[in-house]
């Protein structure tokens, strides 16, 4: 009987944590949906040192991004009773995100189109692996709006690479489907777990 109680209670706790994970994802979608707008505003304000705009915007967004996922990861570790691993894992994760991001920024700011293209490709692969790991392996919770968000981000990353390499002036327009789909994904994710009292 106790065995059933322990097993069932763990399933219920995981269901609640899964809901919290969706809320974390909703915040993540909402946060990044504002990125293009913030970036364009920065480019309007800071015309003197435009090469600093990408790093300024990204450092703030990445900080908050790591914070929300790190908070969630701590929650899961406490519920599952997993001891925190060494810092090595976090250094690898940070490097996996930072290196391609830096390649894209340097490529865009200093006009090295192939560096941007390579950075975009690596970023896309890393993002796909992380998304697969989080959604499928951990929570079996993958919705059409997650797929939509994933596709528009990948399309955005690919289009950055192509537009910069072939010098096509469509970079600003390419942010529109990304922003709209991420706002929608944030809304749909919030609606999954939030309702009136």
């Amino acid at each position, binding site marked *: 009987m*106790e065995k*059933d*109680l*322990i097993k*069932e*209670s*763990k*399933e*219920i*706790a995981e*269901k*609640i*944590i*899964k*809901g*919290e994970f969706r*809320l974390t994802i909703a915040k993540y979608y909402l946060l990044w949906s504002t990125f293009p707008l913030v970036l364009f505003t920065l480019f309007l304000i800071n015309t003197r040192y435009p090469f600093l705009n990408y790093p300024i915007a990204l450092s703030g967004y990445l900080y908050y991004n790591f914070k929300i996922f790190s908070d969630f990861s*701590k*929650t*899961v*570790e*406490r*519920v599952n*009773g997993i001891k925190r691993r060494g810092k090595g894992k976090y250094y690898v994760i940070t490097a996996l995100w930072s290196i391609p991001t830096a390649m894209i920024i340097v490529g865009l700011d200093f006009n090295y189109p192939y560096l941007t293209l390579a950075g975009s490709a690596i970023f896309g692969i890393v993002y796909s692996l992380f998304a697969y790991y989080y959604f499928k392996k951990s929570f079996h919770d993958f919705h059409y709006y997650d797929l939509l968000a994933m596709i528009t981000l990948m399309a955005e990353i690919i289009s950055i690479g192509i537009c910069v390499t072939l010098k096509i002036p469509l970079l600003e327009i390419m942010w529109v489907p990304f922003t709209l789909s991420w706002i929608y994904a944030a809304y749909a994710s919030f609606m*999954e*777990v*939030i*309702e*009136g*009292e």
Partner: protein
Amino acid sequence: MSDDLKKLMDILSDPALNNSVRLGILLALYGLESINFSQLLKILNIPKSSLYTHLQVLEEGGYIKMSKKFTAVGPRTFIEITEKGKEVMRQYSMLVNKMSEKK
């Protein structure tokens, strides 16, 4: 019976924790610290009165604390784990993990 199993049985013999929904909520709160009522209701998909009863039992046992707070979307009931709740879940998690490692 081993000492660990006896301790685990002691924890589970508390009427407030001898139910999978209540134990599950407390275990989740051990990780989350707090959650709001409407969110919990939507996630668990059980009747409102039933959830409220479970939470009342946990509150009477001193494991959680419920309070009304004003948020941007109107007043919401928040459920927070107490120090007593955290301590019992810390012991519970440790015992369950120890026993599963032995298997």
